[in-house]
């Protein structure tokens, strides 16, 4: 699974990353949850409960955040757990900041 996650991770530019990173409410809730609790290691069902949703509702969003690299999945015993990748999150933030800096403003020039 770990290998699969690494293989499916894609390099996105800041703009695309920004658009995908919080494109849904569930992704926004997941980002808030993991920014406030970066050490959280839990199953998808438990994570979903923490943000007031069901596993089915957040499954696609979790997969997308895993693809971006901000979240990772690991197998602990018979359980698949979701963890936060702080370094990838920092990279994503840097990438978004670069995107923001590249935006031409109405006042420019």
């Amino acid at each position: 699974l770990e290998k699969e996650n690494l293989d499916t991770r894609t390099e996105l530019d800041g703009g695309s990353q920004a658009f995908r990173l919080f494109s849904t409410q569930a992704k926004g809730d997941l980002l808030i949850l993991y920014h406030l609790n970066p050490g959280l290691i839990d199953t998808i069902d438990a994570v979903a409960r923490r943000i007031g949703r069901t596993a089915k509702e957040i499954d696609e969003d979790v997969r997308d955040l895993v693809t971006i690299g901000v979240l990772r999945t690991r197998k602990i015993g018979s359980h698949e757990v979701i963890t936060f990748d702080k370094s990838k999150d920092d990279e994503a933030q840097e990438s978004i900041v670069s995107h923001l800096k590249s935006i031409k403003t109405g006042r420019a020039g």
Partner: protein
Amino acid sequence: LRACFDLVLKNMLGQKVGDGIYDLLDREGIQRSEISAKFDEVVSVLNKAFGTSARVLVHKIAVGLYAEYSAWPKFTFYDSLTEQIVRLRDKVVSDRLTPRHTLTIDHQSGPKPVPESNAKTIPSHEISFTDIK
């Protein structure tokens, strides 16, 4: 509104992106102190930067603002969010709602003066030295 905006940016996107957004707003001629007054312009800058994802941010800000005033957010993700913020502002004025995290004028100006008639009924731990003559 500014505090909610700041909190959502920090918690959802992190400090670096938050600072990047403030920098972008500054370049667009919107100072931090003007975020509440120019919120429509702030939303259009966010739309320009993040496209449709900006709606997730604005929705979180609106929900946070309603929570701050202990008001129930009776709107969905797809309603006009800036309209909901204006509606809350009207409700705050008409119902005299106060935010949860702001000190009242009583707290800011020290202990309340004790009226002569109520002095005996007030527990001793609430009476400060300034009340004893």
